[in-house]
């Protein structure tokens, strides 16, 4: 735990910048990988930059009201906040960001900040499909988050701390100090839960593109969409950073960081391209049957 210093602000912005660019490229890369599975070449690696610029550069936009306007702001603030409340690199003063504000619990609960804002914005659009999407998303999230929470708690119990840097510290030294090996049940539960939070198949019925045209963001466009895309680049990585820190030994420098994030992300993509889509109640049951017991075992056995 450290105290606030002004220098942390530029450092944090630097982290943000690095992660944003990494996210833009990583997402494109993942899209390309998915395309390769379909024997396509896929989008160019820089496509996300262009999409972003285009969306910021559209000339018109509409608004349904104040919450509609604020929704994407909530969303992105949630993503950026999640990233900044967690130390990115272990042992680095520079990249421990704003983690002095709170510990693991803060990060866990801040995940909902963006989701809530987004849901509210989508709600105000008045579009039933947005509401349906939110309903599905929230329903699925409640059950998907449960194994994750259990795994996190298991890890916290294991290391007897709620401070992320303490947890990472405990995993240093050897590959086999990683939680992955010391507490495999928790990691398994968390990784299954991770699949559910990535909005990729088989858990992407929330965004069913043609049935409820991509669900919650169906009314969003132009710069709103750009903000949300920005978040889309940051948020998964922020989430992966937590997973990496808790279960995979964290990262002490950027190359390791990039590699670990890539691999963890790849896991979700890998599952996504292989499996078809679940209905919401199916995914709830799936988590309840497969992931939750793992999590419960993890906290009981730790």
């Amino acid at each position: 735990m450290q105290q606030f210093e002004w220098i942390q602000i530029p450092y944090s912005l630097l982290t943000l910048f690095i992660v944003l660019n990494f996210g833009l490229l990583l997402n494109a890369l993942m899209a390309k990988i998915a395309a390769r599975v379909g024997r396509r070449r896929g989008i160019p690696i820089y496509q996300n930059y262009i999409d972003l610029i285009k969306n910021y550069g559209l000339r018109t936009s509409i608004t349904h009201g104040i919450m509609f306007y604020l929704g994407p702001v909530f969303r992105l603030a949630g993503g950026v906040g999640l990233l900044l409340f967690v130390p990115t690199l272990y042992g680095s003063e520079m990249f421990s960001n704003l983690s002095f504000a709170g510990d693991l619990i803060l990060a866990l609960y801040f995940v909902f900040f963006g989701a809530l804002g987004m849901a509210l914005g989508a709600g105000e659009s008045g579009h039933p499909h947005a509401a349906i999407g939110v309903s599905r998303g929230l329903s699925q999230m409640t059950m998907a988050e449960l194994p994750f929470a259990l795994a996190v708690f298991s890890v916290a119990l294991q290391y007897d701390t709620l401070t992320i840097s303490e947890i990472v510290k405990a995993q240093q030294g050897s590959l086999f100090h990683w939680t992955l090996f010391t507490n495999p049940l928790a990691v398994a539960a968390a990784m299954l839960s991770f699949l559910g939070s990535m909005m990729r198949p088989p858990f992407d019925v929330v965004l069913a593109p043609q049935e409820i045209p991509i669900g919650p963001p169906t009314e969003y466009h132009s710069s709103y969409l750009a903000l949300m895309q920005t978040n889309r680049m940051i948020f998964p990585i922020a989430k992966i950073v937590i997973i990496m820190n808790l279960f995979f030994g964290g990262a002490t420098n950027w190359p390791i960081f990039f590699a670990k994030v890539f691999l963890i992300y790849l896991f979700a993509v890998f599952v996504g391209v292989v499996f078809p889509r679940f209905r919401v109640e199916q995914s709830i049951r799936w988590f309840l049957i497969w992931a939750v017991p793992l999590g419960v075992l993890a906290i009981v056995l730790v």
Partner: protein
Amino acid sequence: MVSPLFIIAAPLGTAFFISLFSKEKQRLAFLITLAAMLLMSLVSLHWVFTYLTSGPVDYYTAGTLPPFSINFRMALPEACLILLINLTGLFSTLFLKNSLLRMGRLSMAVLLIDIMSLSGIVLTRDVFNLFVFLELMAISTGGLVLLSEDNRAPAAGLKYLIVSQLVTILLLIGIIFAYHATGTLNIDGLTVASLTHSTGGKLAFFLILIAVIAEVKPFPANGWALDIYESAHPSFSVIFSVASSSAVLFATAKILSIAGPEWLPIASNVGIITFLAANLFALSQTNDRRLLGYSSLGQSGLVLAIIGQQDILGDHYLYVAGGILLAHAVAKAGLFWMSGIIKGRELTDWTTIQGHPFLIFSFATFIALLIGLPPFPAFYAKWELIHSLAGAGRFPLLAMILLGTLLEVGYLFRWFGIILKRKPDGPGVLQKKRHRKRMVIAATTAVGWGMGYLWGTLSPLGHLFHATPLLFALSFLLLDWLPARIKNSLAIAGLVGYFALQYAGYNPMQLIFASVILIGGAVILLAGFDNTGRRIGFYPATVLMFAGLIQLIEARTSFDFFAAWEILTVGSYYLILRGKQSEPHALSYILFSLGGAFLILTGFSLAAQGGYQIELQMLGTVPQSVAPWVFLFLALGFMTKTAAIGLHIWLPGAHAEAETDVSPMVSGILLKAGLYGLMLLLMTMGKQQLYGVELTHMLLWIGALSALLGNLLAIFQEDAKRLLAYSSIGQMGYALFGLALMNHLGWLMAMMFVINHYIYKSMLFLSIGGVARRTGTKEMYRMGGLLKLMPLSFIAVLIGIIAVSGVPPLSGFGGRWIFYNAIMTSEYRLPIAVLFLAGPIAFLYLFRLIHTIFLGQLKDEHRRIQEAPFWLIVPQMIFVALLMGVALVPGVALRRVDHYIGQFFPNEGGGLNWSGMTISSDFGYWNPVAIMVVVGVMFATLLAWLLFVNRQAQVVKQFNIVYAAERPYRPETTHFAWNFYAPYRKALGFLTQPLVTRFWQTVTDLLHAASDLFRRIYTGNGQVYAIHLLAFVVMVYLYSKGL
């Protein structure tokens, strides 16, 4: 001093005298009768004061000493009973005026003789003389039944005569053999001669006893009495129920005094079975007088049971028996008289007293008297009775008394609900312009309160009327004619003023609760300024609830605590009942609450170990043999108030149907009473094991399941207030869980919940209440798109749901953070898993709440509605500010509590470190200010950026949405709101099966079915009644053979 024989001679002389009058002088005869009654009442009042200090005095007849002549004995109990009998006679005479004049002077003579014979029963010390007076009573009863205009009355009279023939036979045989065995007829002589020591004497005694008990109308030999109650003139029913019952009960006590304590169980068992059976059968009654009749039978049974407990009651016997007997007497008199001014005979016909606040007040007084709610005599009496029973280990009796009382609560409060909430059939069914009768009812009510005062004075445990909060609350009864706004100001001033006076003396925990109750109550009361008019009945109930709450916090002894508990229960019941559709919910509220209260009573009585109260701080010193049971009962009792799962079914309806500003009170504040109790319990008693089961572990599970199921049920509600109500169940589950963790941070978390839940639930209920008032519906899917019309309400709800869900940066997060730190040291991990699931589910219903009301599509009919009334918004904005305050500087409220809790866990560190801005524990840290600033800055920056790139957005209207190349049809079909979480229901709906509701429903159905089935033994055939009596005698005989 006037000799008690006067009470025999005067009415007899008068009776003979007025029968001399000619028919034309009925009025004069009536006046003379009245004068005689008045004189007798005054004389008996004089006796009461005379014998207040002196001991019993014997009065002889025939110039010969007993046992050779008949003698009377006069002492304080006798004097009181005589007063009761004569006052009843006096008031009844007043009430009966028309009937008496119609029936003529002879009926007045019969009435006088009836009263005389009752006095005789009380006074005489000779068994045969007792028999004569009993016969006089029976015959005059048979005659007075005829005062009724009901054509069925003579049949009832005949049934009574048939039964009394049987009683006569038994009594005479008993008397003659008793005489044969001992050579005396004097009761004291029989005692001295130890009647029951010989075989024949035993049998003789049995016959006398059973005959006298038969007059007490024991189950099942009491059908005739019911028929009399149903058909007789109500005012005669008063005499029959109040005076006759009291007299024969006293006679029973006298007879029992002949024999040793080994005969007491007969009285106890007959009494308690009668009490239970009568109250059970009363459940399915729809006729008011018959219902009152059942209730009278039950009460007589209860007193009989108490008479059977005189061996353990000792000095308190008279206080207890008298308390219950007199309370019943006053209440039943009042109720029967009230039935005299109501024309219809169905319970629903009593709806005509709507609009007569005084009659409603009287009715409430009477049922409170009957049930034994504070501050009435039966409350003190039951408290001591239960304590004595527990002290003596007579648990089955204890349980049956409480169960019977609960049944009584059921039908009486159901009746009360019907009276207040049903629509009257038509106006004017109430008899008009009967000031004489109303005066009688008013006097009875006054007597009821007076007795409450008297019993408080006599009580060794404390005088409820000496508590300022209660008096303050009662004073609102007198001020009810003032406009609502003035009363509101007074109430607020009272709450705040009391806090200002008292806060210095509270410990930190008390301070938190007291602030929530008093200051919090005052804030919610601000919403009351919205009401114009007088709002009759609201303020007494509200302030009564607050009075009970604050007395609860201040209580030091179990007695004070329990009294406060019942006061707050009653106050809140009246509050809840005020809601539009709240009749059934208020009933289940009072049933669960009083059921819980009885459990608490049981717990306290166990803890008192034969004493009459226990210091709350001493709960920890209860011996290990009973401690787990004390813990169990108290915990269960408190959990009825926090609506733990299984005991929760009263809550949703009660909270949802209450008035707009009542919901926040009963949800935000009232629920805390249960938490306070639990906290107190855990602080003093700690962990307890019962049969090897750790009880706090059970509490953990209950807390976790409450949280889960409360939240789960909340997401499927269509009614916004119901949703919030279920959410309260979940939130209380969290708090309970925190307490049951039995560690420092767990308790701190519970305290945090106390504050947070108060703020956000009050705020949400007020906002939603305001919305519901404007839209005229509570169903969310009928709303939608209100954000633009009610922005302030929206802000309140938004802040509220962020806080409830625990999302940073608002105050709910603090609670979650403490929660995680608390469970780090918990021994039990499985319930935690359940609780983890509950967390995100809260998110579901909260989103639904805000989305379906404020977002989505605005409906046609809501296009012109306005923001909620100013006075509803004011407290909401205060709450928003409070939430922000608690979110930024939780230490202000919690630091001292943290320290205070620390003293209960001296061995573990566990506390939080509050130094600087960062709050840290052994495991983690948290900086509320930093979080707030970071989030705020990020949000502002991004918003600025969006405003820059998106500066000229076209504002569109609600149908300007992409609709698959079509356009919406109507707002109703475009608003996705109903059954919002359909997939969730498919997946987890099985968890929301109303099993608990079904369970309680089955219990009540079974009770009603049993009631309806078994009351059919009262076939109405006089012969069958006689057979019942015979069977009763034989059964008791067989039972007593076993003694």
